[in-house]
């Protein structure tokens, strides 16, 4: 900061004003941090820049009391990670501020992901699906071109230099003509906009054919599909007429890979009660399908998942056992020479070990609502997140921001509910979060807490969202700090 704005500078005291101390005070000053008991011996310290450190409570108390020996390793580590500063660390505050700013860079370039729900029709009848409809009546649940055109206008009003348009359903390939229409219009608009534009279709791949693959190859469109595990598990989770969903999905993955390339299809799994006993079988299925990664994610408490009591069938402790068993297996695979990544862990590791922001919607502060993604429903309704749309299908329209047929982009983004959600989802000021040692690695999920507690901030002592973040983060820190062989593997997963 070689230069300063004199007018603005009047608003803040110079650094020296923060350094006044009596002679008997220590030679170092504390920087803000949070802490929590980590295990029987150690405490976890973290700060707003996302730095963390483990130390004994005696050292923590000594550091706070100003009794830390400046020649000790602990002192040097704490200074290097911005937990304290002294006369030898002039740039500490500037550097810390820069790291905090970098971690929040996504706020400036908001809404990189735009989800078009082109139809609710689907050939599957999954018990936990929130939105799909079994209907022959196309007009009832398909997006039309007029709706798509207005939504596209809104897409390019977002300031994000990267724009990803994701087609969802239902099964979006059942309305492929509209996908073509949107892709070509978006490409035309982007000739002037010059954004980094990408397309992905979230599909069960049942209806993939040569014509669709030709088109996707010509326009650089990728696929995301669902693969819940081996056939008995996948077909139990995702029933369709003929009970051949698993076979069709695996065949679809093979065809996309053959035609578009190995990296043009990814897969997501949903963890139901039936999945919890089979983490190894699920991971083996992903390996067999040629994937080098899996996302071990819990079932969301929305829509039909609640209506059919799917989310009540397992508690969070059972999910954590599933996650740990899966991770231990994945780490063993890596040690034996098979590179394989667990995506949720990779996201958390990126937050732990990098100042670069992640784009994962569910771990943002303020929440990712509208900042990370906007959802344009088939009928023109606009939602702050995909989960908000799912909740709306259960009759709760709390997170509906407006309608492209009635509301301007500005009216949608200035929706009072959205602003209230964003303000209250800043973890800097949320109850318990403000002093939580896991806060820099966590975020807010207002839709989750609204669905489970009827309040978008939520009581953190009862939040499975908090428990998951804390326990997964603790598991990963333990691996990083206490298991050198696993540390080497996990460091490779960091993807800023």
């Amino acid at each position: 900061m070689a230069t300063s704005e004199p007018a603005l500078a009047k608003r803040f005291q110079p650094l020296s004003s923060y350094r006044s101390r009596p002679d008997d005070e220590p030679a170092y000053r504390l920087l803000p941090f949070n802490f929590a008991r980590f295990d029987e011996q150690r405490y976890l310290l973290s700060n707003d820049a996302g730095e963390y450190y483990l130390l004994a409570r005696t050292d923590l108390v000594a550091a706070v009391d100003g009794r830390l020996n400046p020649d000790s390793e602990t002192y040097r580590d704490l200074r290097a990670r911005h937990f304290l500063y002294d006369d030898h660390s002039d740039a500490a505050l500037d550097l810390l501020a820069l790291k905090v700013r970098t971690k929040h860079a996504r706020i400036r370039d908001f809404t990189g992901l735009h989800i078009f729900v082109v139809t609710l029709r689907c050939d599957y009848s999954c018990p936990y699906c929130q939105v799909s409809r079994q209907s022959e009546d196309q007009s009832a649940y398909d997006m039309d071109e007029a709706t798509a055109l207005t939504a596209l206008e809104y897409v390019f009003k977002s300031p994000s230099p990267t724009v990803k348009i994701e087609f969802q359903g239902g099964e979006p390939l059942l309305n492929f003509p509209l996908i073509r229409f949107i892709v070509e219009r978006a490409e035309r608009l982007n000739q002037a906009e010059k954004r980094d534009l990408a397309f992905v279709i979230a599909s069960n791949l049942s209806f993939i054919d040569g014509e669709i693959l030709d088109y996707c190859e010509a326009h650089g469109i990728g696929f995301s599909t669902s693969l819940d595990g081996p056939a008995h598990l996948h077909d139990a989770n995702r029933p369709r007429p003929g009970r051949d969903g698993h076979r069709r999905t695996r065949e679809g993955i093979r065809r996309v890979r053959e035609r578009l390339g190995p990296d043009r299809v990814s897969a997501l799994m949903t963890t139901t009660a039936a999945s919890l006993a089979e983490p190894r079988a699920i991971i083996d299925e992903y390996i067999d399908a040629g994937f080098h990664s899996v996302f071990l994610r819990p079932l969301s408490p929305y829509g039909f998942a609640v209506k059919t009591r799917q989310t009540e069938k397992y508690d969070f402790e059972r999910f954590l056992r599933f996650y740990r068993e899966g991770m231990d297996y994945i780490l063993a695979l890596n040690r034996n020479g098979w590179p394989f990544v667990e995506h949720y862990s990779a996201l958390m590791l990126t937050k732990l070990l990098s100042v670069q922001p992640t784009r994962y919607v569910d771990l943002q502060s303020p929440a990712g609502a509208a900042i990370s993604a906007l959802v344009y429903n088939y009928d023109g309704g606009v939602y702050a997140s995909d989960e908000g749309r799912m909740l709306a299908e259960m009759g709760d329209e709390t997170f509906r921001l407006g309608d492209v047929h009635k509301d301007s982009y500005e009216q949608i983004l200035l929706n009072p509910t959205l602003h209230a959600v964003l303000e209250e989802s800043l973890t800097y000021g949320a109850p318990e979060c403000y002093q939580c040692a896991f806060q820099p690695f966590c975020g807010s999920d207002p839709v989750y807490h609204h669905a489970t507690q009827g309040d978008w901030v939520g009581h953190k002592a009862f939040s499975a969202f908090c428990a998951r973040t804390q326990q997964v983060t603790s598991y990963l820190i333990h691996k990083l700090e206490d298991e050198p062989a696993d540390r080497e593997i996990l460091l490779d997963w960091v993807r800023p």
Partner: protein
Amino acid sequence: MPRDKRVPLSAIDKVSASRERIERVCLKAFALDTVKAVCYRFAAEGCQGLSVSDDGMSAEVRFRLASTVSAAEEQALVGRFHQDLLDQDLRKTVSERTELVRQLILANAFADTALVDRGHE
């Protein structure tokens, strides 16, 4: 676990009543806000009430424990509650000592300009 020696454990009295357990906390040792923060954190573990004595010298924290909670689990819970009181007290100290510099860092981070006039140093 190293024991923090700054607050004597004798500052905390304990009264048990069937499956309701009451922990009495000395408010000369701990600020009421500290006790409130710890009660919030233990809400999912049966912490259901907080009241202050008429003379303002102590707080009573009421736990409602399920019948399935064993005596050993109850002792462990109470132990963690008291440890958390000490931790929360330490958090309060850190927060008070770093509040101004934290405001400066956040302002500097989000204002996207040089706000500190180093010419005055």
